[in-house]
């Protein structure tokens, strides 16, 4: 004989009501509370171990000596540079952590695309001489490791003696009492000049925010800026702004007809300082702790200084280093027919 317990019916109704109430407005507060007690973690480090692959992004545009152009070797297409050596150290540490070999899946893509790929979850991290301290809404939502390179920053180069002298004279004229603030001083030093920058780099974001009295030319890459300056098409480029270590390397080894803008003391003119770091997704907590620790240990052992010295001070040709220590790149993930691109005048600000 069937029996019906009315209390059981009531329990179902109560449960249903509770479920609905949680699903209605205000449920966000409950979720937030739960996250506060037990933060949602995607365990991206565990995911890397499970798939035995780490997806690393790098800029296809060369940022010598951090990332050199992709080159062919006896082993196929390879990319090399300071950032690549750092990437290898991270891969090695990941292999040790996971207890099995972790292979890199290197995405060599345009600099501007690195941020969107990371946002879309297609990359675990990227390394391309990216300054961690750039105040710009375009850099919101990303997280950075501890710096692996401290002496970066934004500087400028020119091929004309008179431009270098003009900038120095402008700086001298500002030795007033009280002195103007640094940002104003920089703006005045470069006032009226035509300045080329690579789009979406720290130099671009700095110039757009702070150099209102200069004419801005946006380039797809640093080589494009050189090409545009060489072609002497209007408007003639007076100064190229960019990452100081990259510019210093270029004028010392590749474009010896250009020189760094300097102060009267002979020291390079820095518009700001930049600390280069590995870029990861904001919610990649475990991976960030892990990468921070790798960099900390490298620094503590003096290896970071050694890596910097190898790439910035030693005399070498990158194809040889690419052959012996370069990373293979995933050809399918490289921009097809990489073109150094062009330059165009920025819209009036």
């Amino acid at each position: 004989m069937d029996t019906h317990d009315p209390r059981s019916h009531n329990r179902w109704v109560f449960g249903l009501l509770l479920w609905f109430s949680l699903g209605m407005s205000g449920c966000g507060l409950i979720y937030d509370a739960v996250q506060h007690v037990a933060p949602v973690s995607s365990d991206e480090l565990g995911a890397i171990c499970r798939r035995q692959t780490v997806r690393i992004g790098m800029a296809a545009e060369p940022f010598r000596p951090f990332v050199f152009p992709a080159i062919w070797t006896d082993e196929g297409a390879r990319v090399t540079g300071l950032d690549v050596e750092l990437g290898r150290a991270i891969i090695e540490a990941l292999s040790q952590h996971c207890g099995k070999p972790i292979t890199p899946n290197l995405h060599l893509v345009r600099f501007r695309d690195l941020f969107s790929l990371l946002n879309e979850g297609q990359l675990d991290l990227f390394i391309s001489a990216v300054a961690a301290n750039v105040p710009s809404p375009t850099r919101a939502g990303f997280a950075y490791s501890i710096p692996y390179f401290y002496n970066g920053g934004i500087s400028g180069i020119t091929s004309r003696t008179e431009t270098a002298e003009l900038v120095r004279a402008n700086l001298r004229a500002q030795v007033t009492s009280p002195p103007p603030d640094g940002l104003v001083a920089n703006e005045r030093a470069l006032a009226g000049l035509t300045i080329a920058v690579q789009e979406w780099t720290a130099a671009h974001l700095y110039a757009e925010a702070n150099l209102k009295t200069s004419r801005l030319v946006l380039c797809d890459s640093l080589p494009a800026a050189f090409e545009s300056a060489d072609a002497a098409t209007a408007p003639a480029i007076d100064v190229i702004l960019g990452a100081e270590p990259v510019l210093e390397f270029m004028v010392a080894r590749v474009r010896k007809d250009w020189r760094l803008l300097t102060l009267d003391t002979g020291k390079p003119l820095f518009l700001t300082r930049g600390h280069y770091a590995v870029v990861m997704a904001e919610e990649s907590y475990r991976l960030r702790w892990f990468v921070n620790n790798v960099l900390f240990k490298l620094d503590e052992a003096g290896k970071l200084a050694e890596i910097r010295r190898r790439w910035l001070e030693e005399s070498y040709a990158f194809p040889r280093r690419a052959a012996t220590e370069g990373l293979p790149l995933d050809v399918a993930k490289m921009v097809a027919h990489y073109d150094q691109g062009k330059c165009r005048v920025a819209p009036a600000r």
Partner: protein
Amino acid sequence: MKNARVAVTAMFLMFVAIPFILPTPSWAVDRAEAEETARLLAKLLKAGRLVIEQNQLLIDDQHKGNKGFTPEVFEQQLVQEFRQQTGIDLAKIQSTPASISLPSLAKELLPAFVLASKEVVRDAQVVINQRGIGYKNFIPATYGSQAAARFSKQSRVRLKQTTLEPRNPKNEPDDYEASVLKWLSGRPRAEAYVSELTDQGQTLRVVMPIYYVPACLTCHGEPKGDLDISGYPKEGHRDGDLAGAITVTAPLSLR
């Protein structure tokens, strides 16, 4: 000139003729087939290197993006170069006239090498087509290393580039190759090749020498010790010096 003839005759006697004078074992026919196949494979790799050399200026043109040097274009030029050198048309290899004796093993392996070479050129497109980058290190030697490695992976016949002073440790000669290279380096340039049975007659080794031509000397010539564009010290060689060899290792129990 007389010395060169003596040297070539000596090479022929030492490595080619003498093994045939000795009692003929049952695999003699296979050996002839393997040797001709090995010779043609080495020639084909040499032709591929030449095609890359002929396109070097285009490949390193920093002002041009898409170079149009596709795997298909490379194949066309390779087939043409090989036909000029051997009279064999790889495009019609299965219907080669009886007047040209082509071993069936060669009919199988030559197209396989062309395929491996095309794969290398296909994978190198991302490097070749970079605009704004001049030297890309896609040169005869790096093409050859990859093409030989890929072919050897898929075949029991091993193809290799080697030299006494290799820049790439993987191209280090083994004992046999080193002894032949030393022997060749003391002799004048000749278009002969060395063929010998090793492993108690189980393996055929063919060594085809490569000599420096003026185009190679930008990186391998004088002044000795100066770094070339790729960062390796120049070896101080001269036009006509022995550069190395293409070697083929074929087990005689191929079928």
